[in-house]
């Protein structure tokens, strides 16, 4: 791998390291701080499960960050991750509560502003909503769970020592679940901005399992988290375990479980699919703050006990953090991108041009899009999404859905299906019928991504995306990842951008 790629990945790895150093304490802090679990046991369990969670369940929350803004140049990803890390560091130094999730969202918005990309307001509100929901949900889960646990223990009447042994085992189990959830939910913070520019390619293990490029990227991020856990989290764990609200080991277990459930809910694609297929409302997959989930759970138990010991100021600070952290991070990222681009001469974003060609216009007409007022800009090329959108909105008012459609059909991305590149494709992963359909397009060029996708869908229905419902999400994701592979493979860099 190119040394520059490794260099640029370091900011993500640094962010991962700091996440491991700090957030592992949310999972194992009380257990280690109260000496219920040995640090080495905690660190080992934590590292293993963070890696498993990140690699196998990390994609859901990362996708949402990708929808918010897809950082498309390695140097840009480097700056975004670094800005988030710097923001976390600065706010920690100032003694303000901070969450990596909020910092990275701010950094992505900063990148969007700098690159002229559009921040998807729907996704942004979805993310902001989950930040508020996260501690609330943790509290709502922790309070009854605490009550039930108390009842069960009262009924079971374990010997103090037996209870101690069970609690130790339960703390390790809860810690493993918590670490898995942490990896699944928060790997998006660490490596999410690198997804678009991932230097890794998919490969098969024994022809049975595909280890995707994203999974390889997440594995590296998760290893960085693991290193953070081993090298620095002991100090934080001992501080958290002894200085936070004094909790009995059983109450600590409840807190860890509530925290883990919340992080898992906001990360599990499997659960999302299960809920959707049962006709139930789904939970958005978004990276949330594990520290705030812990605070929410502790407050939930506190309220159950009468609410006397709750420091409401902490809650106020958390609320303020929802606003200040992303703003600071966005500003830091914007300024850093400026320096990276103009002082270090690095490409921090790949210009994405937009144009409404006659083909695109025809397509929009087919979809019932109001194009009459847009004829005068037909054929014009715009430097970025913001200018393109402004040009359209100047002429015709659009609904949010229409706006998204205009952006999708106007984004220029040249591809050329060359016979030479066709020999190198991974037929096994694409599937035989899909590969044959692709070969049928040999020699053809496309101006837009959607064009290639539609031609393929016409050739073979296996390339066709199903209706966008949560139940179809998994299937569509598989098709989309294959299409992304084609875009990367057949990208025609010769064409002007």
């Amino acid at each position: 791998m190119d040394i520059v790629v490794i260099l640029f990945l370091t900011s993500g790895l640094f962010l991962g390291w700091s996440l491991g150093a700090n957030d592992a304490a949310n999972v194992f802090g009380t257990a280690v701080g109260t000496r219920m679990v040995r640090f080495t046991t905690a660190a080992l369990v934590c590292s293993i499960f963070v890696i498993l969670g990140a690699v196998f369940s990390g994609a859901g929350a990362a996708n949402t960050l990708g929808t918010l803004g897809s950082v498309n140049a390695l140097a840009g990803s480097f700056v975004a991750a670094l800005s988030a890390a710097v923001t976390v560091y600065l706010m920690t130094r100032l003694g303000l509560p901070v969450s990596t999730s909020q910092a990275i969202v701010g950094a992505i918005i900063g990148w969007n502003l700098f690159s002229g990309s559009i921040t998807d307001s729907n996704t942004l509100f979805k993310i902001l909503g989950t930040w508020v929901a996260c501690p609330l949900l943790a509290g709502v889960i922790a309070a009854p769970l605490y009550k039930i646990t108390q009842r069960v223990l009262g009924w079971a009447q374990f010997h103090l020592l037996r209870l101690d042994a069970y609690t130790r085992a339960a703390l390790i189990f809860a810690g493993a679940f918590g670490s898995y959830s942490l990896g699944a939910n928060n790997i998006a913070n660490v490596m999410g901005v690198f997804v678009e520019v991932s230097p890794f390619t998919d490969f098969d293990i024994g022809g049975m399992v595909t280890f995707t490029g994203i999974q390889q990227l997440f594995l590296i991020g998760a290893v960085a988290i693991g290193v953070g856990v081993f090298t620095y989290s002991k100090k934080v764990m001992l501080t958290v375990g002894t200085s936070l609200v004094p909790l009995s080991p059983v109450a600590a277990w409840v807190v860890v479980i509530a925290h883990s459930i919340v992080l898992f809910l906001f990360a599990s694609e499997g659960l999302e699919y299960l809920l959707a297929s049962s006709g139930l409302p789904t939970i958005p997959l978004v990276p949330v703050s594990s520290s705030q989930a812990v605070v929410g759970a502790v407050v939930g138990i506190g309220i159950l006990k009468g609410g006397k010991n709750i420091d409401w100021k902490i809650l106020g600070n958390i609320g303020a953090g929802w606003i200040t952290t992303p703003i600071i991070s966005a500003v830091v990222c914007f300024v850093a991108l400026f320096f990276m681009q103009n002082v270090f001469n690095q490409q921090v974003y790949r210009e994405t041009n937009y144009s409404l060609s006659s083909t695109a216009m025809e397509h929009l007409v087919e979809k019932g899009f109001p194009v009459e007022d847009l004829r005068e800009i037909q054929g014009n090329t715009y430097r970025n999404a913001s200018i393109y959108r402004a040009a359209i909105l100047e002429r015709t008012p659009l609904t949010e859905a229409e706006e998204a459609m205009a952006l999708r059909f106007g984004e220029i991305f040249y591809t050329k299906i060359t016979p030479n590149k066709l020999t190198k494709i991974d037929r096994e992963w694409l599937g035989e019928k899909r590969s044959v359909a692709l070969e049928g397009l040999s020699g053809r060029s496309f101006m837009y991504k959607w064009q290639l996708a539609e031609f393929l869908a016409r050739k073979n229905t296996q390339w066709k995306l199903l209706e966008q419902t949560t139940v179809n999400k998994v299937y569509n994701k598989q098709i989309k990842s294959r299409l992304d592979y084609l875009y990367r493979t057949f990208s025609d860099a010769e064409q002007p951008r």
Partner: protein
Amino acid sequence: MSKTLALFRKTRFLENQIDEFLDCVSESSLVFKGAIKTYLEHGICDDFNASTQQAGELETRGDELRRAIETQLYEQTLIPDLRADVLKLLEDLDNLINITQANCYRFTIETPEIPLEFHSEFMDLTDTVISCVDAVVMSSRAFFRNIEAVRDHNTKVMFYETQADKISSKLKVMAFSSDLPKVEKIHLRYFIERIDELANEAEDIADALAIYTIKRSI
């Protein structure tokens, strides 16, 4: 997995040791009760000496168990949040065994003269004190297994301790208003106080247990 199973095996062993230790406390109080009864009826005799020896053996066994339990609690870093409380509880309970043993020896060495008219009250005092110790042992067992019952047992401890105070005061009044020589009056008072000491100690343990229980339930 095997490590977890080993942990559960060790836990079971330690639970048994704690139960055995509490048995020692109960047994030693019953031995003391028997010794006083024998002393009042026959003075120093073979049966009394046997009881004293038994009290000594129980004291030794209690010490061994207490040390073994304490060592294991520390070596295996068990119940880290309550370890100090449990150690204090075990030491205080062990002190009850020490007091019963010491009292048996005092009777052997000092052979106090207890006039017949004092016997009934003396036995009453002993019975009440032993009930008090029994209640605190029950309370301690409840602390380990069923904390909700601690309060009930502690209430009994307080009741018996108050009763013991009343009987011992009555006995002291009887002693000092009798025709006994001054020295014997003082000697009697000393033994009344030594027996009552068991109830006072039990009450202190119950007070501490109430606090430990609150800590356990947080």
